[in-house]
């Protein structure tokens, strides 16, 4: 499987670390809402189809990415930096695909 890192271009999945379900919302740090914390820490979506995931390009630029992946076909539909602000460099990524 290849994941196209917005910085590094398409790379082997072995360079990446799965960092969990990308649909989770972390409660405010001071929140005492245990149900919300429980949902954040333990609940994971497991759709058969398109799924929002977080991957880290741990064997490359180390950026965390928001990845939309089809869990049936393994097709990667989109990738983007999890941290905003840095310009995406999709031109190069496309040029190298």
């Amino acid at each position, binding site marked *: 499987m290849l994941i196209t890192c917005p*910085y*590094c271009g398409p790379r082997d999945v072995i360079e990446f670390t799965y960092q969990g379900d990308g649909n989770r919302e972390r409660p405010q740090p001071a929140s005492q809402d245990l149900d919300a914390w429980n949902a954040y820490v333990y609940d994971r979506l497991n759709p058969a189809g398109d799924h929002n995931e977080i991957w880290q390009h741990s064997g490359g630029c180390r950026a965390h990415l928001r990845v939309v992946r089809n869990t049936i076909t393994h097709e990667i539909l989109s990738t983007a930096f999890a941290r905003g602000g*840095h*310009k995406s460099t999709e031109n190069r990524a496309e040029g190298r695909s």
Partner: protein
Amino acid sequence: MAEPHLPERQSPLEPEHHPGSHGNFEHGVDVILSETRAGSILQLAAWPGEEKRLIEIIRKVTGLALPDGAGGGVNSGARAVFGFAPGKFTVVDEAEGLAQAFAGSITPAIGTLTDLSHGRTAIRIAGPKAEWVMAKFFAIDFALPAFPLGAGRSTNHHDIFAQIQRSGADQFDIYVFRSFARSFWKALCHASEEVGYEVQ
């Protein structure tokens, strides 16, 4: 705070560094392996939106103008710079003390400077079979159109994290963690045996 009289640093490769020709070299040596022993290896990071200012500072201090785009870089021989992650750059000087040259110019508003001169080991592979040998280690495309001159790449070989700059048409500089350097060097020598290699 210049450090003019510091002793020579110990190379992590020492016991495994054997100058001369090795492997299947009777028909010629197709790669040359060496440690560049760069004096300064720095990591510069810009906060989002501050990349342009950081690139300008790099130009002022080193005289190297970074080309646009992810992984862009330039290598002048004595100095080198390349992007390896969003907003992050590796800057290298054959002389020690480059960190002091940057001190003061990288303000907290722009980003950070981390001195990795001891922590990273720079290994150079050069020669007509450099791409072939590199392809044994890294799952990235080393062909010139895909990996242009001066450009940088972050990748890994098993647990060995590597930043790679193409410093010549058939030459690459590989920056690895110091603790892994000897292990990686041994593997690199081993992988170069079939093409014949020379250690300088």
